[in-house]
């Protein structure tokens, strides 16, 4: 079942892109309401009041994937996933401080 057609051909990746609310929902296979609930939980910062004109960055996409993955894999609810992500951010920040102190 391994598709050999694509083998040998190197796919060029895009580094610069952002997604709209609609594209995010389609991409993750959830309704826009789910994405809006994630935004309302303050997991992803938004600059615009009108979400339909917002564009979501790499890091927003990463955080939304993490929320959905944590909900899916560990059965967390939205507040639990938000708390986990905030604590993980805090651990990252502390790691950086420890490394900087060590220097």
């Amino acid at each position, binding site marked *: *079942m*391994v*598709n*050999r057609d*694509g*083998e*040998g*051909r*190197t*796919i*060029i*990746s*895009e*580094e610069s*892109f952002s997604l709209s609310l609609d594209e995010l929902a*389609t*991409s*993750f*296979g*959830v309704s826009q309401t789910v994405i809006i609930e994630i935004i309302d939980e303050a997991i992803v910062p938004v600059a615009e009041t009108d979400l339909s004109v917002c564009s979501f960055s*790499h*890091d927003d*996409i*990463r955080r939304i*994937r*993490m929320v*959905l*993955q*944590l909900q*899916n*894999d*560990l059965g967390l609810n939205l507040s639990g996933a938000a708390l*986990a992500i905030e604590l*993980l951010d805090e651990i990252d920040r502390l790691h*950086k401080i420890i*490394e900087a102190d*060590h*220097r």
Partner: protein
Amino acid sequence: MAYKNYYAVLGLERSATQDEIKRAYRKLARKFHPDVSKEAGAEDKFKELGEAYEVLGTPETRAQYDQIGERINQQQAYRTDAGAGQQGFYQAGNADVDFEELINSIFGKHYQQQANQGYAPAYDKGRDIHAQIEVSLEDSLKGVDKTFQLKVPKSGSGHNIDYEIRTIKVKIPKGVQDKQQIRLKGQGGNLPGQPPADIYLQINLLPHPWFKLQDKDIYLELPVTPWEAALGASVKVPTLEGVVNLTIPKSSQSGKKMRLKGRGLPGPVPGDQYVILDIVIPPIENDQLTKLYQDMANATTFNPREKLGMANG
């Protein structure tokens, strides 16, 4: 396919209750979740835990699994009693086949293919595939081609989608940073009546034994001898692109930060490499060295604790 001890994976005895299995799985799943854990091999461990729980978490599949385990135990006892007879090996072979059949019946025939090296874990519940891939600092520097396998939808709709394992070779861009996303447009499979799906790859940069990354800058703690720090020296320093010579100025203190411009990760504004000096004294003493330290002590009234208000001695 060799029999796996799923009880050991969950850290349990065979006598564990269903509740104990559930609790052990949940606790370990939180610990080794790839988005949570920083431990090496967490991804594999998480997959193995899921596999163990899928088998042991349901009494029916657990009973089937236990029967196979029981037969293997009996065969091992038989081999211990009667020596490693040919019949014993033959029966053990059968148990492995039964185990493989059980696993295939639970996970589907392509399960083992997914376990191949380079299989990228993915969130694939939407139209697109969101996967993660590990990249070394050296690979980020050079921007290498990376090959991995992904399960992508091939045909069908709703809950009846057929998948195929697709081997994908992607150009990892130069200077890619930790947790950065890259997009592979139209490479995530193509279901009838739908536009081709994309793959979003999250780059997870692997920790390096001595280079530490901060954004695009690289930090290296460089051990130097007391005489190199005191007298100044030209020393060889590793960078991601190879060894360079660094001139350490006279009277350098431990913790001194020196910059190698443009030796960090590449990009429109390339990062720098910072070298932090760490003065290390020789671990082995000898009489000559001891005398030199003694001479040094006699030759100076230097008090490093002056600021603390402490007098020498």
